[in-house]
């Protein structure tokens, strides 16, 4: 379904839209307060953006350096060209250890690769341990936000879900009760797990270590309890040196949730004794995106979600309306690179207001890339015959003052003389909920001519 239709559907329940909008705006305001508190925020964004640009220009070298250092630390490094290879690699590691019960902390990459259904089809139980992720997992839905996966669900909805799946008592959506129950449920899963899967927020080239950020400590809990730790990372997650973490960690938490620092920022370097640590480095379309000059900067993304929280369209249409693993503004410039036809409506799901670009901690020019994708889409994806020809016609009318003058006059004549009932009918999308401007007298050019002739 195209974004506009899904968004219209989401908007049928206006109270819920208002609630969703306010919840995300609240996070955006928290972010503003935190960003104001550190001096040189804009400077930090410049640094982060420059560092990411450096990483992307030297990605081959940094990847090799990272692999070397990780191996020295006793970590096994795997390379996956695409989602399928990634899933197979993860599965083979699990098979080697005869692992049947897996705990997984939040990772958008494994979502992107559809790892859960793949493992489940191979008789492996995967439990998402981030609370929000667990909620959407129980509801059999994809996350609707990359940092707040269940932000589209009210606490009452979570209450019902837990009653059904975890056997909790009706609590009217009492958050403390529900969190406590979730913790009990997850504790058992942690204790029974054969292996832990985590994402990677930052991989450090000069140490071979990597950092995972969570607010619930669930990545650590999984990784420390289980015998095997598999970390899955997109290949753009690298940063050159350990000292650069200071920049990125400061930006990430503030942009994501408006916290000064993520509650748990865990730095993994090597496996504990008697245990195994694996890293799977995934391409899955990233090299291709890197080759598109206009769009390569989209790979700066550190997945903070700030562009979603600030996006006035996302806030009012919900993450699911984007029908993509990464929704919102950043998703709208990443997704067309993967499947132009399927995601062709996404670059149009924006007013090009530019708020996303200004909020982005790594300064991705998101709204400019949306504009660029639009030019590509109308060429490469079949457009409705009428739309295409109307645009051509408009183009040639506007290029010729005389025709333009004639069309302008007729439009104004029509606006003046067509009955309101017809103008405001369903056929006219503008007039469905809005009045058209009232047209009186001369247009400006006619007025000006009369004035100067006098």
């Amino acid at each position: 379904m195209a974004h506009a239709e899904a968004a219209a559907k989401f908007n049928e329940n206006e109270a819920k839209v208002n609630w969703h909008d306010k919840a995300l705006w609240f996070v955006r305001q928290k972010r503003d307060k935190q960003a104001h508190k550190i001096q040189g925020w804009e400077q930090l964004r410049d640094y982060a953006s420059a560092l990411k640009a450096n990483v992307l220009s030297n990605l081959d070298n940094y990847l090799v350096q990272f692999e070397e250092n990780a191996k020295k630390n006793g970590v096994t490094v795997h390379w996956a060209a695409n989602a399928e290879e990634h899933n197979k690699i993860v599965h083979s590691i699990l098979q080697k250890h005869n692992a049947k019960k897996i705990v997984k902390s939040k990772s958008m990459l494994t979502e992107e690769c559809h790892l859960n259904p793949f493992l489940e089809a191979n008789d492996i139980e995967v439990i998402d341990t981030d609370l929000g992720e667990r909620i959407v997992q129980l509801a059999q839905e994809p996350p609707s936000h990359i940092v707040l996966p269940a932000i589209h669900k009210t606490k009452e909805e979570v209450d019902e879900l837990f009653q059904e799946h975890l056997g909790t008592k009706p609590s009217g959506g009492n958050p403390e009760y529900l969190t406590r129950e979730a913790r009990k449920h997850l504790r058992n899963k942690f204790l029974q797990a054969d292996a832990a899967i985590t994402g990677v927020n930052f991989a450090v080239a000069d140490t071979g270590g990597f950092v995972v950020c969570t607010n619930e400590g669930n990545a650590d809990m999984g990784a420390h309890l289980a015998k095997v730790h598999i970390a899955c990372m997109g290949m753009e997650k690298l940063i050159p040196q350990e000292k650069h973490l200071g920049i990125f960690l400061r930006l990430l938490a503030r942009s994501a949730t408006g916290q000064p620092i993520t509650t748990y920022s865990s730095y993994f370097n090597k496996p504990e004794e008697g245990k195994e640590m694996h890293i799977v480095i995934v391409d899955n379309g990233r090299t291709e995106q890197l080759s598109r000059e206009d769009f390569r900067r989209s790979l700066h993304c550190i997945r903070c979600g700030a562009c979603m929280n600030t996006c006035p369209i996302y806030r009012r249409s919900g993450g699911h309306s984007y029908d993509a693993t990464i929704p919102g503004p950043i998703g709208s410039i990443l997704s067309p690179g993967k499947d132009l036809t399927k995601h062709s409506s996404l670059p149009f799901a924006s007013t090009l207001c530019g708020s996303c670009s200004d909020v982005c901690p790594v300064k991705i020019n998101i709204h400019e890339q949306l504009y660029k994708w639009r030019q590509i889409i109308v060429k490469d994806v079949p457009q409705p015959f009428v739309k295409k020809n109307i645009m051509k016609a408009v183009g040639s009318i506007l290029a010729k003052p005389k025709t333009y003058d004639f069309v302008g006059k007729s439009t104004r004549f029509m606006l003046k003389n067509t009955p309101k009932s017809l103008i405001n009918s369903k056929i006219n999308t503008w007039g469905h909920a809005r009045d058209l401007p009232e047209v009186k007298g001369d247009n400006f050019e006619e007025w000006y001519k009369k004035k100067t002739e006098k």
Partner: protein
Amino acid sequence: MKVGLFIPCYINQLYPQVGIASLELLEKLGVDVEYPLGQTCCGQPLGNSGYEDDSKGTCQLFVENFKNYDYIVGPSGSCVYHVKKHFDILEQTEDVKRVRENTYELCQFIYQVLGKTDLGASFPHKVGIHKSCHGLRGLRLGSCSERMDPHFSTEENLLKEVKGLELKTLNRADECCGFGGTFSVFEEAISVKMGKDRIQDHIDSDVEVITGADHSCLMHLEGLINRNKQPLKVMHIAEILNSSI
């Protein structure tokens, strides 16, 4: 200094009073201003819809019309932004480069180029500014709430000097109104919802008149206000700056 007045297509056809106010305002300020006849549009509706290739003729016409002026001034932030930002589809001749460089939004021209704030206007009403995104984040007519820059606003600077005018503070200082050109048609549901929310913020903030430097946003808001019979008036900032009692 010779100034060419750029009146965007929709203002020419639907809101001539905005064009008139802009012209009168510039004349009052002693500017040697002229409206080149035969202008049409800046090409933005095509570009934003993905058809910038079909807009080349329109953009070229714009350059032809305005290439002989020292400054080109128009009362519409988004159109000015389009000229400055997206005319790279044309061959970058000297004319094209000069036109892009010297095109200004009206308030920006008055404030930055003429260096004036007090225009001698009076307008005794409670006013809220809709800071249109293309002007704000595109032309940087003011600081925006996402960035940690010191606060400033070109529109505020001008409106603060208007006698009797009471400037109201909004809950969301610079949220988009949801117009977005063809977005308002293809994403009707969201566009309407965003506009409604924007209007509500002004009502909650005790505003009588919504103003701004981009009449396309105001057209969208006015359409909703009139349909829902809300107690608000919409006026382009040129009309306020040009008014006296």
